[in-house]
């Protein structure tokens, strides 16, 4: 079964790491999942056609790309107020787009179809030659996150070294910063290389912990705050699992703009984002996007991420 699951995982090429904020969205989307599947597919198709159109002329609206961490419809619902806010404040239309999957989205990044883009830390590090980070997410009042390893309390495992030869389920895929790269880094730090344990992937980070709960693995790799997400708490008895270890804290999901964007515009956008908590309208927009704020971010703020990624993926070539 593990192989099957892994096979499916490879086929999807998901950006699981960026889904850690999906708890509330998943709760809602779960109910609509089946019902709105076809509608989402239709929406994404329309979006794909809309991205080139947005970049067709400089007078065209700014295109804001959001990675498919959630369902396309939900993504639109969550971020439409923010796009409208930016467009209003900038005096220029801001067009919200997303993609049907991570491949399509990443193609958009590679082709620099987005003027403003929101994705995970690994995505940013890999596209730093095309985009410049201007802000980062603050969720639950904090702008940093850490990777963690979880085990069941009744498993008898109380040290990372005991995971040797065990099955570890990670959320999302190898692109997932918090649910794969950071826990893998933790394992490496403890002396366990990828071949020392069996790796399986769940659909997304919450499912990695739920998989552990259902006995599908001996440990779960995910973000440190995953255990407190409502979507997880609603699906399992979180008191039955515990943290086995955590990484250092690193900056949260980035917001970047094209490198060729005028500095003034980029600064204006940064300012508009960071100022949001200070305004009544901004707080509503943040709440709608299931965030608590934006923090200013510079490229250097993601050096720790680069270090960790290089450790976990030594062969990867990261642009600057």
């Amino acid at each position, binding site marked *: 079964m593990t192989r099957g699951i892994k*096979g499916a995982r490879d086929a999807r090429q998901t950006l699981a790491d960026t889904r850690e904020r999906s708890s509330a969205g998943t709760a809602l989307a779960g109910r609509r999942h089946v019902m709105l599947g076809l509608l989402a597919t239709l929406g994404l198709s329309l979006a794909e056609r809309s991205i080139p159109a947005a970049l067709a002329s400089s007078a065209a609206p700014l295109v804001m790309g959001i990675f498919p961490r959630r369902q396309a419809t939900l993504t639109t619902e969550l971020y439409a107020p923010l796009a409208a806010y930016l467009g209003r404040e900038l005096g220029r239309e801001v067009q919200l787009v997303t993609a049907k999957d991570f491949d399509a989205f990443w193609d958009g990044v590679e082709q620099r179809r987005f003027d403003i883009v929101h994705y995970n830390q690994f995505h940013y590090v890999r596209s730093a030659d095309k985009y410049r980070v201007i802000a980062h997410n603050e969720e639950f009042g904090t702008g940093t996150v850490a990777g963690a390893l979880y085990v069941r309390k009744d498993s008898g495992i109380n040290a990372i070294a005991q995971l040797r030869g065990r099955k570890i389920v990670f959320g999302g895929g190898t692109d997932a910063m918090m649910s794969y790269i950071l826990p893998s880094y933790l394992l490496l730090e403890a002396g366990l290389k990828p071949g020392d344990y069996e790796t399986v*992937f769940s659909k997304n980070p919450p499912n990695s912990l739920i998989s552990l709960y*259902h006995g599908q693995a001996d440990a779960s790799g995910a973000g440190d705050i995953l255990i407190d997400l409502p979507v997880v708490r609603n699906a399992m008895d979180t008191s039955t699992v515990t943290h086995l270890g955590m990484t250092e804290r690193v900056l949260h999901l980035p917001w970047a703009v094209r490198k060729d964007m005028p500095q003034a515009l980029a600064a204006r956008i940064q300012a508009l984002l960071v100022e949001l908590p200070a305004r009544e309208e901004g707080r509503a927009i943040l709440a709608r996007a299931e965030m608590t704020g934006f923090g200013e971010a510079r490229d250097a703020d993601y050096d720790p991420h680069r270090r960790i990624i290089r450790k976990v993926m030594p062969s990867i070539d990261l642009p600057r």
Partner: protein
Amino acid sequence: MRLASKFILTVAGILSVTLALNAWFFLRSQNHLLEQQLNERGRVLGHLIALISPEAILGLDFLTLNAYAREVSRQRDVVYGVIVDNDEQPLTSYVNGDDPHIRSSLGVDGPTPDHLPPPRLQTLIRELAALPDVIPIEFPIAHDGRPLGRLQVGISRAELAMQAREQLLQQFGIYAAIILFLSVAIYLVFRYSVMRPVQRLIEVSRDVGRGEFTLVPVTSGDELGRLGETFNAMTLEIQREQAKLHHQANYDSLTAQPNRMLAVERLQQEIRSAHRQQQRFALMFIDLDDFKIVNDTMGHAAGDRLLAHVSAHIRARLRDEDTLARLGGDEFLVLLPRLGQANDARDVADRLLAAVAEPVTLDGREVVVHCSIGIALYPDDGETVEALMANADNAMYQAKRPGRAPICFFTAEMNAQVHERLRLEQDLNKVIARGELQLEFQPIFRAADGAYVGAEVLLRWWHPERGFISPATFIPLAESTGQIVAIGEWVLREAGRQLRCWLDAGLAPGYLAVNLSRVQLREDLELLIREVLDTNELPPQALELEITENILLDDHQQINAVLGRLHAQGLSFSLDDFGTGYSSLSYLRRFSFDTLKIDRSFVAPLCDDAEAAALVRAIVAMAHSLALKVIAEGVETRAQMEFLRDLHCDYLQGYLLSHPLDAEHFTTFLTRCARDSLPRDSVPTFVQ
């Protein structure tokens, strides 16, 4: 319970059972259908989820699997929906906390958790699947032919049961209405088409029971109509039969005239009518004289024809309003209403005498018969049916007496005689107990030498108040009341006892001749005589039984048999009062008599009347030719005795020779006979 009630209960019962069965089958099939629908819905849902689940299972997407489980569990009639792996381990944790089955199984009153730990969920599912109102269904989940797990769905029958209950209630209501409607309709039809004709039949039956012959109106050609027709036919038949019975009960079949019953009824009516109208009427009793002779000599068929003729002759002399009735045998009753004078009744009686005396030709012979008529008048001779009939009968009885006119009106004296007769009857009941009877013995002597041979036993009644009462008075009375049986028994026993006494005293009493009444000639007479002989150690020859010609008239086989057996035992018989009755010579051949007794009425004129002498001579000659001995009764003169001796009459009896003697004097007589050595050679040898 009334027929209509029984019928309607039966119909309602049948309808109820039929509709109940129908409802049961309907609900059963409906339940089956609903359960099928339920299964189908569960199957569709299950297949859909099973179809989309592999990706989530393979991707360890437990949130999606939970979402599936939630979607399934929240479907109507679904108790639970759980996805388990191949090891039966739940891959979902969602349970519908609002479901009553789950709440009940978990035993919680407050909010129920939406998620359960896998072991607890596994246990819960097993418990729920085992519930009787839960249908557990499983759907395999596979990918590329490789089993990944199963979707377990529990479908609740609760909704189904509720629907069934509601449907049952609806059906019950509808069927109750149908039963009520049909029952009322059937009852009304039954009442109109069945009960009404039946009720009419019942009413007409009651009418028929009361003697009112009404017919049932027949309005239909069905079974009830045919029943009505049959009933009417039966009613008419009963009516005819009743008329026939009425005629048979009230009319004499021989003469077609009213019988005694109708005569009494009409007499009753006439009494009421005469009482109201202060009128007089006459009641006549008519009895044919010597009618028995016609029957005996010409046969009963001829006698019946004679009665019919006489009846017709009488009827022809009466008015229409007069009633002629045959009371029985040769006795008629005539009722003459609205009678002016008593003499009018006499005139009618005279006419009736003449009518009866009209010659009638029977079998080629002309027969003339006379009658006696007794007349009682209302209200002079009685005001009741019983009194009038008794008095008319008495008058007729008087008219019958020898020497009386054939028409006799009832008189007060007759009533006195009747009362006298009643008194005698009452006294006769006590006569033996009081010892008022006494035997006397009149010796019988041999004519040739005057030797004593025996004696005739004569019965005497010495009434303590009225003195001597003649046998001619009380014997017929005792015969008519049956008291003669007890008296006759007493005579036989007393005669036997007396014989024993005389024999014991060394005397030679000869034989004793005892008179027998025809009433005594019963089966037990033989036993009685045997007992008398045995008790007193007497030979059969010690007794001779005297019977009269009248007894033989009956010619009854039973009498023949009794007399034959007694004669065979050695008892001798004598025919008493020969010549006074019908004197049929055939009697002498039919019975084995030993002696023939010539009545005193022939002996008395013997010396003065040549015809009487010739008759006696002929009797003696005839008897001797039949080897019969002859006793002459009533010998009172020496000339008679000499004459009889000359005729070779065998024995003599009469006052000339000896008066009847009581036992004491007869003992003296026997003693003297013994002392004087009267010729004894004819004395039976049994004298010891």
